């Protein structure tokens, strides 16, 4: 008997809901007429196409097409922005990127900054995604408990997501600079002022920390929705089975959360690889190039200076995309296995 907590609405509110839903019903009813006709014509499989169509149309025009154009860019050179004004160079841009003495040592590469960025990004992603996952999961689990003032607590953890990356970067820069809030707070304990962001380790640490800080609420919310979707009666069954909280987490929560965990993992990974704005504002990629990530490289190469090289930037972005696709494929094959598992019924 799951869902005991579902309460019936007071009649007044229900009435309001009915009134509000009337126009929606009308519109949806109208849409239903052609939909039904189409369904008659094509059966269920035809409907899949209908449901996909609007998304796919917008998607093809505004996402896929630009991506293809982007690929074509990567085969051209020059600073011109529009394709017709650019010169075709084939794989030249890729050749430049891959022109290395040894791939393990960026300094032997023609595009040494690119490879430094690749290496930095790889390390960053490993730590950031792990930290992100743990933090988001912990937050979601805790927000999923029966707290009073739920809305408040959720807002607390979601709040940073509302801030633009620039503001995020800025706030933390102010906190972390040599004369910043952190040093100020530490001074009573006898710490000398320290330039956190000029230190390789700490700059990296805070790049991870701040990006987790800024986006954790986003993932926590996804996980929270997923947690709430787990039927209550399974927890009741587990309680009857004398399961400890840790075992409930490992054997019930985690597997049933898997579809949503996959969302979070995939998105977190993609976004970690694409990390840019807030870290850029925070560390600018420094000290030296130690927190310079691949998107910053692309941005610098393709857009920052007046002498842009969009071809090289595109090539780099295509490479980044390919790596991401591979990583995502790996994750999804895991999820496909889990899809069947997570299903009730």
């Amino acid at each position: 008997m799951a869902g005991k907590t579902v309460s019936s609405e007071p009649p007044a509110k229900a009435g309001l809901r009915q009134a509000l839903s009337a126009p929606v019903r009308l519109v949806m009813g109208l849409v239903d007429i052609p939909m039904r006709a189409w369904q008659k014509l094509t059966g269920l499989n035809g409907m899949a196409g209908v449901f996909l169509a609007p998304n796919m149309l917008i998607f093809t025009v505004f996402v896929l097409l630009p991506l293809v154009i982007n690929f074509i860019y990567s085969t051209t050179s020059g600073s011109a922005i529009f394709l017709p004004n650019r010169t075709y160079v084939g794989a030249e841009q890729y050749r430049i990127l891959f022109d290395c003495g040894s791939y393990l040592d960026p300094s032997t590469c023609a595009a040494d900054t690119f490879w430094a960025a690749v290496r930095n990004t790889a390390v960053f992603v490993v730590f950031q995604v792990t930290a992100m996952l743990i933090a988001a999961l912990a937050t979601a689990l805790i927000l999923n408990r029966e707290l009073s003032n739920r809305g408040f607590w959720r807002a607390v953890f979601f709040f940073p997501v509302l801030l633009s990356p620039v503001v995020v970067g800025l706030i933390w820069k102010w906190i972390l600079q040599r004369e910043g809030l952190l040093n100020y707070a530490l001074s009573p304990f006898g710490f000398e002022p320290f330039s956190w962001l000029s230190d390789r380790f700490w700059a990296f640490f805070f790049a991870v920390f701040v990006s987790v800080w800024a986006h954790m609420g986003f993932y926590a919310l996804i996980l929270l929705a997923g947690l709430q979707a787990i039927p209550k009666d399974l927890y009741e069954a587990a309680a009857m089975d004398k399961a400890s909280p840790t075992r409930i987490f490992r054997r019930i929560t985690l597997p049933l959360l898997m579809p949503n965990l996959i969302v979070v993992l995939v998105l977190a990974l993609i976004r970690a690889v694409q990390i840019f704005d807030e870290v850029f504002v925070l560390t600018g990629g420094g000290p030296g190039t130690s927190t310079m990530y691949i998107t910053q490289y692309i941005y610098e190469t393709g857009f920052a200076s007046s002498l842009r090289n969009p071809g090289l930037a595109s090539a780099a972005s295509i490479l980044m995309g390919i790596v991401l696709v591979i990583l995502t494929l790996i994750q999804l094959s895991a999820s496909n296995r889990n899809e069947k598992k997570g299903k009730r019924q």
Partner: protein
Amino acid sequence: MSGLELRNIVKNFGAVEVIRDVSLAVNDGEFVAFVGPSGCGKSTLLRLIAGLDKPTGGSIAIDGKDVTEIGAADRGLAMVFQSYALYPHMSVRENLAFGLENTKVAKPEIEARITDAARMLEIEPFLQRRPGQLSGGQRQRVAIGRAIVRRPDAFLLDEPLSNLDAELRVSMRAELAALHARLKATMIYVTHDQVEAMTLANRIVVLRSGRIEQVGTPLELYNSPANRFVAGFIGAPHMNFLEGSIIGHENGYAEVETVGGHRLSVTARETRPAGERVSIGIRPQHITLADGAAAGRLDTRVTLVEELGSETVVHADASGKKLIAVFAGQQKMKSGDSLPLHLDPAVLHLFAEDGRRLS
């Protein structure tokens, strides 16, 4: 374990009163069945005992210890949910093993218990399947299995056999009885099946709208229902009731005038004033065919005949009042036949207008 005591339990869902002041003591090792109309609060009561819900009022004690504030995991009970609540992502085997792993039972022991339960429940072929790949009855058996393997001090079973076929139900019933005998565990059993309640339970608790109507051994309930509700509820098809009024009393018998001016005498413990409205109850199985013009004969007309093979259920009309009678074997009656019935005073029940038993 495990004596169980409910003291003045009340449970409300918002404004809806679901359990109203239920008190009940269940002895260690007893097998108690909860019966009652759909929605009367059986499952709710079970959930309260389990610790899955908190009562709005009253307290629950297990073995004399107040457990009202103790969580479900710490009460040491096992439960078969009416909705099964199987873990959809685990195989049947894992579903069964989960509770044992939680209590750190050794691996071989887990294996043994699962094999045991699976054999008993006839689910060996499905141990590797997920619940989603099972039929309704198979799922229900897994749900039972999950409780059984735990060997808890007390079982809470919420209609555990409702989706099983007759044959399987009989064998499961026997298995549960054997289990009860072997484990000496307290069992609380919700069922809609009269046969289950009658054959399995030491005592039956009859609930109605969140109140206990009667508690007693199966035959007590059958033979001396405390009131008209219990009388009607226990026994299938349900008892026939004939409205009537007291004419007089004589040697512990009450003379009652009922449908069509028909007069019946019924044993009565109490003397009620003449003219008072009463009702007479008679079980369908106790109605016999009147041979010839015997006294107390009731003339009726057959309206519907239900052939069950081993017995025949006859619906009859006695001066506008519907009666149901059950005859053994297959009868040659058909709708429209006239049917003279005999109501033996010895098997009649008498109830006051408020439902209280008088006989």
